[in-house]
């Protein structure tokens, strides 16, 4: 009885196993036959393609490349490639003011800069790397981007003069206005 029962169970298990493999195969082939949600449109992106396009940097530091920069190097990069629009110390303009303004957000003339307003230091990499300098976006090397970030954070009193900015240190930088944002509470204006 026992032997019979065991072999019954065994063949049942084999049967279930075969069915499961068969079903999995069906789903797998159905999956590949219905590429693009059943429309068969588009193709799988290769890892290489994704690497080339995947330029964003998030607050965790995901996306930051290797390389590094110092305040001293950043001063040179800024003077050569940024000062023409942002002024020699990042305060003169004519374009966005980048330095100073801390303590002004509640005043009649709030000055929104990296130091007074930006909540995440990683955003500097994401933005400068993709969009700056305005006349030659995407032209800075990772070392140049890290350097100019180091200089801007130093000018804003956020890091020390000997700071080295890289993929490890940048996400650790605490921005003064990190807690300055609240989720959209609207509708916030009572109607009569």
């Amino acid at each position, binding site marked *: 009885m026992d032997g019979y029962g065991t072999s019954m169970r065994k063949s049942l298990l084999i049967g279930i196993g075969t069915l499961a493999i068969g079903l999995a195969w069906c789903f797998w082939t159905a999956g590949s036959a219905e590429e693009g949600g059943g429309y068969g449109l588009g193709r799988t992106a290769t890892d290489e393609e994704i690497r080339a396009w995947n330029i964003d940097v998030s607050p965790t530091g995901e996306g930051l490349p290797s390389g590094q920069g110092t305040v001293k190097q950043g001063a040179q990069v800024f003077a050569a490639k940024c000062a023409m629009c942002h002024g020699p110390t990042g305060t003169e303009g004519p374009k966005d003011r980048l330095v100073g303004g801390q303590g002004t957000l509640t005043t009649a003339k709030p000055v929104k800069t990296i130091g007074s307003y930006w909540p995440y230091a990683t955003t500097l990499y994401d933005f400068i790397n993709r969009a700056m300098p305005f006349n030659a976006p995407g032209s800075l090397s990772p070392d140049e981007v890290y350097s100019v970030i180091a200089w801007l954070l130093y000018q804003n009193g956020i890091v020390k003069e000997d700071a080295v900015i890289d993929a490890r240190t940048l996400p650790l930088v605490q921005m003064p206005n990190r807690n300055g944002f609240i989720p*959209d509470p609207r509708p916030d204006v009572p109607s009569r």
Partner: protein
Amino acid sequence: MPRNEKPTANGPAADYARDRMVSRRRFLAGTVSLAGLAATTMMIPRLHAQEVKPPEDPMRVPGALPRPYGDRSPFVKSARVGGAGPGAPHGWGENAPNNFNSWTPLQDLHGIVTPSSLHFERHHNGVPLIDPARHRLLIHGLVNRPMIFSLDELERFPAVSRIAFLECSGNSHDLWLPNAPDFTVQDTHGLTSTSEWTGVKLSTLLEAVGVQRGASWMLAEGSDAAGMDRSVPLTDEVLQEAMICYGQNGEALRPEQGYPLRLFLPGYEGNINVKWLRRLKLGAAPFMTREETSKYTDLMPDGKAYQFSLVMEAKSVITSPSGRQQIHPGFHEIRGLAWSGRGRVTKAEVSVDGGRTWQPARLQEPILPKCHTRFLLPWRCNGQEAVLQSRCTDETGYVQPTRQELVKVRGTKSVFHYNAIQSWGVERDGRVRHIYA
């Protein structure tokens, strides 16, 4: 046609018609000769001539022939006006090289649809020139299968069309300022436009790639010189309504509106409707890009800022009579636009006495959700001073606030999302001015 030929008795209008015949014949003959080029280039200044003299009797002169791509009548001059943010002068003069946006001439438009050529613009480092054959959309991140789509492939997916407004969150930004310059409605409200948008639903593409558990945000990135990127919350509303668009008002998107591909999120602030779209990346948290942290956030009097303030709240404005117009005593139809990012406009009211009394205006069909809605009210100007206002209510019951109510809560430093009731003062001489009332 030789340039020095003496104008005929029929004047420039007949010349214009004949030029077009000449250029058409050459076009048909396929002659790419210097003479042909000369004729074509000569045609341009005539077409845009400052003074167009029509024939005395258009019934006695043969008219112009068909042409490959239409243009409006040379008598119609309505145009966008350029600008560069709060405080900067509006126009195309000396400041033109600094302009990064342009306002729609709402005072000149009929109905609800904005002609594509007059749709407002905002770009962050110019309008890119993109070869559609080489353009691709990559969807990756928290998906089962990262995929790349060509424009042809995206156009083959089931298509959807929707008429909806698109408004820059900075529309009316100058109205936070304490003084009230002699603005037109174009200056005050021209960063909103309505189009028929056509494309594929975002959800269709997300089904294709397979969204992984935990994916609650999506980075959208453009292929302009700013590489403009924004994080989009994958809410039910977004999943149901978001579109990847390639069509605008029946033809391909205009370059200024994202040719060949843009994200469209009905009811959401313009900036997040990323143009020249090249990449969507799904993630578990917002990516905290420059635009959604340091720029498109609304600073409140207590120093805190609203973040991801995406919906454009209900707003309305009288487009006629409006700022810098001159009206005369007698009959006028007060006309305006109302819209809400939360759904349909259910009511538009008009006051001619600065908000003391209100009358319901007629809403003109179609009344579509998240779309400009035209309202109309007959009015007789009696030559006395008047203050014209409109206020709208949307399907959620939200009522457009007065400027005082808005400023009481938000102060005057938030730059974005100004949606208060607009006042036009009509003076005794019929002159209409932008005022705070």
